[in-house]
């Protein structure tokens, strides 16, 4: 069975970095995985060291334009296989894992039909992998559209800011409203320092959030960011990478 893990949180908390570190750790362990960038502000490819530009959004627009032509050239077009072809073409084959970028939000027309086709394609695509890791925006739009239906673990990344925790709380509420199949919800505290460690633990307790890990503020990450080195190339002994290993274990790997 494929395990689906979604990572979300307020912008700037480092959720994309956490997603990249998880992808790195799991693919090193030999898990065949699909990384999905479901944030309209696409950052994951760069963090993984990939200059991917094609997105599912482009594929959807292509099909939508094709099928809503007033006089389609081929009324009997097999739209499912055409969309599937576009999706499979967009998938970036990275060493040991695949990368899929959702990209831009849809235009103004009705995408019910295209999304319904996409849902079916995604359901089948996902079964190819041991793990799917999704970098998702806080609004969880793709989940509300049920493009990806079921999530085993939803991880909310937060920093020490009150607003980061507020977002975590709101995501909790949102999940209840979504009526998606979401297994467990966890919180990862990011950019943890000695000064804010205790405060973070207390905040999580107050809000009854299940804290699965605390990633220390890692000067190496900042350094790599400035130099433009993909985070995927971080060394195993960096303090953030070490903490990720313990999180991966807690997630059952």
């Amino acid at each position, binding site marked *: 069975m494929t395990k689906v893990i979604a990572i979300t949180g307020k912008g700037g908390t480092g959720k994309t970095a956490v997603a990249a570190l998880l992808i790195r750790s799991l693919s090193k362990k030999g898990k065949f995985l699909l990384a999905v960038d479901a944030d309209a502000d696409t950052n994951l490819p760069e963090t993984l060291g990939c200059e991917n530009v094609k997105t599912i959004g482009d594929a959807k627009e292509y099909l939508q334009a094709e099928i809503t032509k007033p006089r389609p050239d*081929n009324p009997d077009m097999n739209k499912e*296989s055409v969309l599937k072809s576009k999706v499979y073409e967009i998938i970036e084959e990275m060493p040991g894992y695949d990368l899929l970028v959702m990209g831009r939000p849809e235009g103004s027309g009705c995408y019910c039909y295209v999304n319904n086709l996409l849902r079916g394609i995604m359901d089948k695509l996902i079964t190819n992998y041991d793990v799917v890791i999704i970098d998702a925006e806080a609004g969880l739009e793709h989940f509300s559209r049920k493009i990806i239906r079921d999530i085993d673990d939803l991880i909310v990344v937060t920093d020490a800011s009150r607003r980061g925790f507020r977002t975590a709380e709101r995501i909790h509420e949102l999940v209840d409203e979504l009526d998606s199949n979401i297994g467990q919800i966890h919180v990862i505290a990011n950019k943890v320092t000695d000064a804010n460690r205790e405060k973070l633990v207390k905040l999580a307790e107050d809000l009854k959030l299940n804290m699965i890990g605390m990633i220390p503020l890692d000067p190496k990450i900042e350094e790599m960011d400035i130099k433009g080195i993909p985070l995927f190339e971080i060394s195993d002994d960096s303090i953030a990478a070490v903490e990720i290993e313990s999180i991966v274990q807690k997630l059952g790997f």
Partner: protein
Amino acid sequence: MADEFPFEISPMFEGERVRKEGMFVELGGPKSLGLELVRAKPMDEIEDDKVTVVGPDLKEMEEGKTYPWAMIFNIGGELIEADLESVIERRIHDFINYCQGIMHLNQRYDVWMRISKDTAAKMDSFEPFGKAVMMLFKTELPFIEKMQVTFYTDQAEVEKKMTEAKEIFKVRDARTKNLHDEDVDVFYGCTLCQAFAPTNVCVVSPDRVSLCGAINWFDGRAAAKVDPEGPQFAIEKGDLLDANTGEYSGVNDIAVKLSSGEFSKIKLHSFFDSPHTSCGCFEVVGFYIPEVDGIGWVSREYQGMAPNGLGFSSMAGQTGGGKQIVGFLGIGVSYFYSPKFIQADGGWNRVVWLPAMLKEKIAETIPADIIDKIATENDATDIDSLKAFLQEKNHPVVASWAAAEEEEEEEEEEEAEEVAVAAAPMMMPAAGFQMPAMASMPMMPAGGKAGGVKITFKKAKITIEKMTIREKKE
């Protein structure tokens, strides 16, 4: 059947992705030419179960390379006719993907396949693959009595087949475009929009595309065949009750069922009487303009106001929600191309206004004798200018004005037209809220003064967001 073939066969492999790392060869696809074609042939021209490979066979191919690819299936049988070619061709995608380690994508002249290293290691030739696919065809579609396939992997041969096939597709497309409601026994329904418009009944027929513009009759047919319990399903059209309005007993039955009894009739090509329901995601909304007795249409892309003082979004709000709103109708753009386009209510002769952008887009389908008589925002932005334009151009609706005026004088104190009430711009609510339709309303007392106006509503739908009535102070 698993023992017969070197690889496993199961629907389980349908979404299987063969990655570059695990791929032996790539056939067709974005970097090369890929073709698939099904041809109906006389029985005696088919050598059953035969696989021919023209060009390098699998074992002669170099690992990691991309090759041009064409596969042409010839089918025969008592029930086989040319019209079935496309239906059968659509299944190639399914059946090839049932084969483990073989990925098939896209269709027609854009086919893209990959053979995995594992599967390639189990066979030297494409022959077992061809036999497996034909076995699947004959098992699932038993009316195929004989079948034979030729695979082409030689560049020049593939190019030749591609040119021939494109001509065949052209002929086939021309034929599909000529399919009409009366040529088929089955229409298709779609419930995708019921998520937000629970009483919406979307009926897709050869002469009527879905309101969103995305689903045509062929899509309905394909989807219903693959998953009859899915969002698109077959509607037996039943008896033709009225050819002009497009009323079928089967459609009426499904209207009752899908709307949970809210609607008893849906007439496919009618604007006023029991029109199609409107979901909310239609591409274009039509609106009756009582002052000119004509119909205007506004598309989603049009940002401005229609002559009735409303824009697309406010009319969409009024019309959407899966209701039959007399005086408004949501459609897909392709419906303008239908030979039955609102034929119950005058068709193109009733159309008085279109946004310039839309008019230009669909110009080829507007009858030549009416095209210059239809106003755009450049000709008319309100009722008065529209009236003047139509009069000047002598639009067909103008003829009905004089007749209506005479009638009005005679019947001034009688019934107001139901349609006029429903479509009067002043009655428009801001949101899509709508009061339940009433069969009739009690007559208003005429009041103390003699010579007051008596208004009777029949089958009226009235929506009022706010209404203030106060005594006139003299």
